[in-house]
Each structure stands twice: as structure tokens, then as C-alpha cells.
């Protein structure tokens, strides 16, 4: 049990403060930094070239009247944005996107949560039910959109055949401006509810059994009391998170519009990303397309920042 004397290191024979030693230390540090940058460098260069320069140029292009392929361009300030805002087509597109999101997000969350609760309420066949409900999220949406088109076909589609069989009125779902957007939203819910379900299942698993035991002892043993006292409040942060993630996915809807409706009839099913695509790459109105991209970017970034704040809060929750 001898304790080393505190002066011992100084008595050691190596002197560390010579110039050579200092130089060696500096060289070693430089070598370390170089090797770190040689690992991180490629990724950084690619990030700049493939993410940051493009996003800056989107802003720049949005301020010009450039058309792809034209050899001249001039600075037009915010003229593109003024045009975008005044454009009936864009207004319809924005309104459609918002309506779509307003249908898809609550629909996906409510159904996803309900199915997750049902699956978790029993022990049998959990993996089976989870797999079935998750399938649409995996499947190639372009291909599934074609299947939906067949289902919704005005004469040979299963939907109308079923409605007719029940004596109910049928419709040309994808060609009627009153039904096209709700139908796209329904496909959106169909595709995303499995994703919400899986996130909710993970959230449910993370609730410690102790809380349910405490609720039992406290007398909250009816299912709605348990739901209110433990399950829903404990899922609150997850639900907020699902909300943002699903909203982002809904805002980024493109495939179904492109395959099923091309924004029609009229502008009835036009959505932001489709407008962005068509203006930029079909009409080659590059400056205009860039302004749409900027608007879209602002919406998505705003949502993501809300998400970041929510996630921050979640960390502090416990």
C-alpha cells in the first residue's frame, strides 16, 4: 500500500522540452490532421459539389430569366416569384398539396396508431400483421400506381364493379376533379400507414411495463383509462415525430401524380413537386422552376426545423 510520491515523474530521466521534441510533436499533430482530412475530404468535396453548390445555384437561377439551353440570361430580381405567386396553376398546386397533406397526415396517423395498438394488444401473429400492413411502403409506388389505376378503372375496375354491385353510384375517380385529389390522398394513406404503424410499434415497445403496472395499481385498468393515463401521453413525442415525417413524405408526393393524373383534370391534382418537375424539365422554364423549388425548399426546411425542436423536447421529456 505504498503511495507513489507526487514528485516521481520529475525525477524520471526524459526531458520533454527540447526543440527537437517539440518539432516532433508538431509534425505528429500535422500528420494526424492530414490523415483525418484524407478520410473526411472526399465526402466534404462531394457534399459541396452535389448539395451546397446546387442549392445556392437554385437560389441564383430563381433570380434570372434563364431558360435551359438559352445562351443569354439577365437578372430579374423577384420577378419569377411574383409570377409564381400570381400563377393560377401554381396556386392550385399549392392549395392541392396542402389539402392532400391535410387529408393524408391525420388519416395516416390515426390508422397507423389504431393498427399499432391493435397489433400490440395481443401476442399472436404480430409479425404477420405488421408485415401485411407494411407491404405498401416497400412496394414500388410507380408499379402500384398502375395497379391502383386498374382498380379505379371506370368500367372494369374492382371499385366501380363493387359499388355497382351494391347499387351505389360509381365515378370516374381519376378523371373527375372532385374525386381525384381525395383518391390520391387515399393512395397516400394506403402507402404510408404501415410506416406510421411501425414507428408507433417501436414507441409502444419503449413504454416500460412499470407504467402499466402502476396504472393497474392506481386503478386505471379499463382500456381507455390505460390509453389516457399511460399509452397516449407516452406516445406523444413519437406521434409528433410521425406527424412531421409523414407530412414531409406527403409534401414530396410525385409518383402517383406523374403516373396516374399528370396533374389533371385541369389543375385538379397538380402538386408542388409535379409542378417543379414540369416547369423545369418539360417546359424548360428554368428560372420559374427554380423559384418553385425555392418555395418548396422553404416549406420542407420549416417542417424539418419544427421536427428538430420537437426532437429536442423529446430528449428533455424524461
Amino acid at each position, binding site marked *: 500500500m505504498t503511495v507513489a510520491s507526487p514528485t516521481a515523474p520529475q525525477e524520471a530521466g526524459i526531458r520533454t522540452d527540447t526543440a527537437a521534441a517539440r518539432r516532433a510533436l508538431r509534425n505528429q499533430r500535422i500528420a494526424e490532421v492530414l490523415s483525418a482530412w484524407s478520410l473526411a475530404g472526399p465526402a466534404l468535396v462531394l457534399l459541396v459539389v452535389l448539395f451546397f453548390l446546387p442549392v445556392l445555384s437554385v437560389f441564383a437561377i430563381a433570380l434570372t430569366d434563364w431558360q435551359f439551353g438559352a445562351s443569354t440570361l439577365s437578372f430579374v430580381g423577384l420577378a419569377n416569384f411574383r409570377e409564381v405567386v400570381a400563377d393560377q396553376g401554381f396556386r392550385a398546386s399549392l392549395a392541392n398539396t396542402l389539402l392532400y397533406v391535410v387529408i393524408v397526415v391525420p388519416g395516416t396517423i390515426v390508422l397507423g396508431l389504431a393498427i399499432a395498438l391493435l397489433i400490440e394488444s395481443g401476442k399472436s401473429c404480430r409479425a404477420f400483421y405488421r408485415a401485411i400492413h407494411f407491404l405498401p411502403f416497400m412496394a414500388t409506388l410507380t408499379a402500384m400506381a398502375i395497379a391502383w389505376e386498374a382498380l379505379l378503372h371506370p368500367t372494369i375496375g374492382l371499385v366501380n364493379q363493387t359499388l355497382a354491385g351494391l347499387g351505389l353510384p360509381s365515378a370516374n375517380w381519376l378523371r373527375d376533379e372532385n374525386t381525384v385529389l381525395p383518391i390520391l390522398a387515399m393512395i397516400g394513406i394506403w402507402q404510408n400507414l404501415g410506416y406510421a404503424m411501425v414507428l408507433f410499434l417501436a414507441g409502444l415497445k419503449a413504454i416500460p411495463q*412499470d*407504467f402499466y*403496472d*402502476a396504472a393497474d395499481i*392506481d386503478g*386505471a385498468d379499463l382500456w381507455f383509462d390505460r390509453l389516457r*393515463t399511460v399509452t397516449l401521453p*407516452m406516445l406523444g413525442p413519437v406521434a409528433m415525430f410521425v406527424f412531421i415525417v409523414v407530412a414531409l413524405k406527403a409534401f414530396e408526393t410525385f409518383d402517383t401524380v406523374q403516373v396516374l393524373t399528370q396533374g389533371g383534370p385541369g389543375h385538379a391534382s397538380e402538386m408542388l413537386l409535379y409542378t417543379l418537375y414540369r416547369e423545369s424539365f418539360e417546359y424548360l422554364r428554368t428560372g420559374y422552376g427554380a423559384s418553385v423549388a425555392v418555395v418548396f425548399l422553404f416549406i420542407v426546411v420549416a417542417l424539418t426545423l419544427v421536427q428538430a425542436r420537437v426532437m429536442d423536447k423529446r430528449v428533455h421529456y424524461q
Partner: protein
Amino acid sequence: MKSQIYQGSMTGSKSGIRFERIGKSFGATSVLRQVSLNIADGEFLTLLGPSGCGKSTLLRILAGLEVQTGGSVAIGDRLVDGVRPKKRDVAMVFQSYALYPHMTVQENMSVPLRMRRLSPWQRLPLLGRFLPGTKATAAEIELDVMRTAKALGIGHLLARKPGQLSGGQRQRVAVGRAMVRKPAVFLMDEPLSNLDAKLRVQMRAEIKELHQRLGVTFVYVTHDQSEAMTMSDRVAVMLDGELLQVAPPQEIYADPDDRRAAEFIGSPKINMLDGKLRDGALVDVAGTTFAVAADAAHGTGLTLGIRPEAFHLVDAGGLNVLTGAVRLVEHMGSDLFVHLNVPGMDQPVVARLLAERAPHIAPGQTLHLGVKPDRLLMFAADGRRLRGGDQSDAKVLRMKERVQ
């Protein structure tokens, strides 16, 4: 009126507990085997055992959180098998406290009262508060919560959420949530194990005091023997799903029924010396002879248990004296732990000596440790305690003569 209900549970016999041949198995593994135990009304009983011994399962069966595979449980005069936890009049403090993180302390403590005193309709969000009687009951609940919180010294924390409380404060809130509805039985599942050592000692005293103040039955689960020894009226030692012994702490320590119980309790651990019985009154252990009183046949193998503090220093070897070389000395302040290598034994013997009586003990030195015959505990090969018939001084003297 509240205090009358409370008086009732204090004086009536309604909170005694009776476990009868409780069995519990998960698939092929059986966690509890035929456990029978009676707990008196108002008693503080501790279930003590290492993790996985089934003590928590027994507690959860009592709470109604788990269903036993066999046997029955009664609280007071009532069989509670199949009765929901809510209807059992038990409250529980969890190891993790299980405070609802989204509720304030006030709301947390209100939950058990709201669930009992308000109807499902009155508990509806938004609408419920407009139903007749909700307001009055809610005010009553608030008052009760306030009273309990004050009694526990957490009145100033009512508006906070669990995340903003220290460990000790959370522990008090968890106790408060259990206490507020004045249950007949308090269940505690390792309630102190998430606290630091200093706070644990303090909360130990507080819980003991709480028990004395409330006078209701406490069933307390722990793996910590010092908690069990300091707080309990009786301790039930459990191992591998069986009760080894149920007795007051001092008795478990001094007069254990089972080798495993003896080994589980006491620090440093009890010394176990294997030996053979000779002439029904002498045990030979690694060259030393101990005089005992045992009703067993000549040549029976048995184990002598000697608590470290049962040793005292003597000048020379002889009957009931172990001799060996000091291997290690641990200074504990008032005490010394001396580890002694005794020739012929694989384990060193540990003795706890008063520091003032044993100065200058150093490794390598030869020591003679004597034991009084009444401090020798004998265990049969199957772990059962062997108790001698009469152990009068006369008999011991007679044996001494025979040896010399």
C-alpha cells in the same frame, strides 16, 4: 371521515396477508415453489433474496399484476385470487418509481384517487368537469393530495414534473402516490435501489418511520440485506423460489435454519468449515477439533458455520481453536478483518476482531482464534441446520476432559 377509514385499517384485521402454497412457472421454469407465508396485520415484512429468487414475482402476485399458477392469496379475510389490482386495496412503490413523466407531481398523486372517486363519465376529458359532483370531488382530491404531500415534505414540488426532481424527491413522490389513498397494504419493490448510498440510508429511516406512523402492513422486496435487517419486523429469506426462513432479523442472523440463509446474510460472509462428526459430540476440521452437541451418527459429514465476529484471540491452540498464518489484514476503523490461512483448508477463514484488542497483527504472523461453543452453527450435508439437544456447560466440560 377520511381519518376514520384510516383508523379502520389501522386497528382492524383487514390487512393481514396469507399466501398458501403459491406456485408460479413460466413454461418449464418454475419461479415459485409452494410458497406459504402469513403476514400479520401491521407488520413490516421483507422478502430478501438475490435477483431471480422469485421475491418480486411473489410481490406482483400479491398486487394482482401477475397470476399465480397454483395456490391462493388472501388479504385480510378475503381471497383475492382473480381480483383486479384496483380492488385489492394495495398500493405499490416501484423500483423505477413509474411516475408518469407527462404529469405534474400533483397529477401523479391524484391518479389513484381520480380512478376511485370519479366515475368513468366524470373522468372524460373536457366534458367530465361539467358533470354534477365532479368539481366537489376534484377539490376533495386536491386537498387530500396536498395533505399527503405536506406530510412527506414535498408540498412545494406539486407543480413540478418528475423530470425536474432529484432521485430522492421522486422516491418521495412515488411513496406519496401510494400513500394518498390510504391502502391497507403497502408494497415496495426495491424502492431504494436507484438512490445513492447516503440517500438510501436516509430513506430507509424515513420508510421505517412511515410504517410506524401508518401502522398498516408493509411488504418490502429487496436484495440488500442491510435494508432487510434495519427495517423489518420479520425477514423472509428466499432462494430459487423457496422460502428458506421467516423470522425477525436478529434471529435469522444468529439462529439460521438453513445454510444458504446463513450464507446470504452477514458481511463478511459466514465461514463454512467442512468436517466429520466423531463420537456424536466432536467435529474434526482440518486438524482442529470442535466440541458440539449433535444428534447425528458417528462419521456424518457436516459443516460448521462460524460468524467472523464469533472469533476471539487466544494464546494457544486447542479445542475450538483454529490456528493459521495471517494472510491479509483489512482495517475497517473500529474493526479488523483478518484473513487466516489454516493448513488443510482451501478457503481462508475471516475473523472480525475489535481493533483495540488486536493491535499489531501483520501478514505472516501465526494466530490462534477461539470460538465459544454456543456460536458454532452446524449444518447437515443437505443444508439443514442441525441443532444440538442440550448444550449445557457440564456437557462441554465433559467433552473437554475427554479430549485432554
